[in-house]
C-alpha cells in the first residue's frame, strides 16, 4: 500500500512562514482537501511531498522513499510516482500538447510505441485529441489545465497533487476540472488538493485538513 505520511514535520522559511509539527497520512485512494489562507503553508506541504523542500525536523514518507535518508538521485523517482497539477498549469511552453504528455513517459524510459499509444489515450480521456499539435499558448486556460491533468496521469501515479487547480479558471470550467478529479479519484488514484476556496470544498464530502498558522488541524 503506497501512501504519504508526515511525521511531526516542521519546515520554516527565513520569513517565519511554513508548517509546524505536521502529522497526517494520505492513504491510497483517498481524496484529501488541504485548505487554509494564503501563506498558511499549503504549498510548503506540496513541496515537502515532492522533496523540493526538506523538513527542519520530522520526516516525510512518500511511497517507499523517506525524506530523512533519500539520495539526491532518487528524488526524480519520487516525483515520477506523483502527478502534479498546478494553478498556473506549468506546461512545457516550448513543445506542443502531444510532446508535453509524451515527455513524462519518455523520461521514465518507455518505448516510443507505448508512448504514442498512452499519449493518445490520455488525450482522449481529457477530450483534447484534436488539439495535440497545438502549442500551450494556443489553448484556453481550461484546456491547458486538462492537458496538465493528462500529463499528471500519464505515468499512472498513486497520487495526484493539485495546487489550486481551479484558481485561474472561471466557475464553469473549474466545475469541469473538479469533475475530472472526481473521476480520477473514483478510478483509484489518491488526490491531495490544496485550495483556499471554501465553496469548492463544501461541494464534496471528502476529508479536509485545515492549515492555520502553519499548524495542521483535521
Amino acid at each position, binding site marked *: 500500500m503506497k501512501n504519504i505520511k508526515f511525521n511531526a514535520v516542521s519546515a520554516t522559511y527565513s520569513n517565519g512562514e511554513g508548517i509546524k509539527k505536521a502529522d497526517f497520512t494520505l492513504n491510497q485512494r483517498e481524496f484529501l482537501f488541504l485548505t487554509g489562507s494564503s501563506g498558511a503553508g499549503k504549498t510548503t506541504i506540496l513541496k515537502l511531498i515532492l522533496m523540493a523542500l526538506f523538513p527542519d525536523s520530522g520526516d516525510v514518507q512518500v511511497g517507499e522513499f523517506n525524506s530523512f535518508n533519500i539520495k539526491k538521485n532518487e528524488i*526524480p523517482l*519520487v*516525483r515520477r510516482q506523483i502527478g502534479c497539477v498546478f494553478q498556473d498549469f506549468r506546461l512545457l511552453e516550448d513543445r506542443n500538447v502531444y510532446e508535453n504528455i509524451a515527455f513524462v513517459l519518455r523520461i521514465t524510459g518507455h518505448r516510443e510505441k507505448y508512448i504514442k499509444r498512452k499519449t493518445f489515450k490520455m488525450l482522449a480521456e481529457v477530450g483534447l485529441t484534436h488539439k495535440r499539435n497545438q502549442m500551450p499558448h494556443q489553448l484556453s486556460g481550461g484546456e491547458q489545465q486538462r492537458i496538465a491533468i493528462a500529463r499528471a496521469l500519464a505515468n499512472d501515479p498513486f497520487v495526484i497533487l493539485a495546487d489550486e487547480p481551479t484558481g485561474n479558471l472561471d466557475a464553469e470550467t473549474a466545475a469541469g476540472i473538479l469533475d475530472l478529479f472526481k473521476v480520477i479519484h473514483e478510478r483509484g488514484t489518491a488526490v491531495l488538493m490544496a485550495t483556499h476556496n471554501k465553496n469548492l470544498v463544501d461541494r464534496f464530502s471528502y476529508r479536509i485538513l485545515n492549515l492555520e498558522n502553519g499548524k495542521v488541524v483535521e
Partner: protein
Amino acid sequence: MNFLFLIVSDGVAGIFRSKISSLMTIISLMLSLALLNLYILLSQNVLMKISELKGRIAIEAFIDPGFNDTEIMALQKQIAIVAGVDSVDLIDKAEALEKFKEMFSADYSQLIDENPLPQSFQIKLNTEGSQEQVQNAIDIIKSMEGIDEVKYHHKLLTSLNYYYRRMQQIFIFVGVGLAVLGFFLLWVNLKLTLKTKARIIETMELVGAKQSLIRGPFYVQALVEGTIAGFGAVLLVTLLFWIFRAENLLIIKINFISSLMVVGGSIFFSIFTCFWAIRGRF
C-alpha cells in the same frame, strides 16, 4: 526509448525550438572564431615577415690579415658556438672582390697589383633572439682575437627586434581579448537562454526528469552549434581570402590542420561555455 537517443533528439529539437537564440549563438561564435582565426593568421604572418627580415641582416666580422688558414678555421668554429649565432660563412679575398665588383659595378683590380680586401666572416644570427642576446653575441665576437672589426646594421636590427617584441605582445594581448570577448558573448547568450527556459527546466524537474536528461540536451545543442560555427568560421575566412585574392600574400597559409583546429576549438569553446553557464543553474 534509448536514453542517449532521447538526449540527442531533444538537443537537436531544442535548436529548432529556439531558432533565433540558436542562430544568434552560431553567428556570434562563428564571427568571433573567424575574427580570431584571421587575426592569428595575419599576426603570425607579420611576425614571420619580421623574422625573415631579421634573418637577412648579416654581421660582417673582418679577420686580422695576419691570421693563417688554420687559425681562421679555428676562429670560425669558435664563432659558430657563440649563443645566438645561426651560421658562419667565410668570405675569402676573392669572394670579397667579387662582391665589391657587384656592389660598385666596376673592376678596379687592374689598377692595383694586390687584392687589398680583407677576409671576413658573414655571420647570421638566430632570428628568435632578443636584442640583448644579439648584442651579447656581437660583443663576444668583437672581443675575439683575430677579429679586427665587426660591422652590422645596428639601428635596423634594433628596430626590427623592438617591433618584433612589441608586435608579439600586442598580438597576444588582442588575441586573448578577442577570445575572452567571444567566450563572454556565448556565455551571455547561453545564460539568457537558460533564464528564459528556467520555468521549463523547473517544471521538468518537478515531473521527475533527471538532471542528466535536462543538462544533456544543452550539451548536444552546444556540440551542434559549435560544429556549425566552426565550419562556418573556416568557410568565412577562406572565402575572405579568396574574394580579396590574398592567399598568395601569406607565408603561413590556411591549411587542413589549422581548419581542424578552428572547428575543434569551436566545439570545445561551445561546450566549455555551456558547462560554465549551466553549472550554477543545477
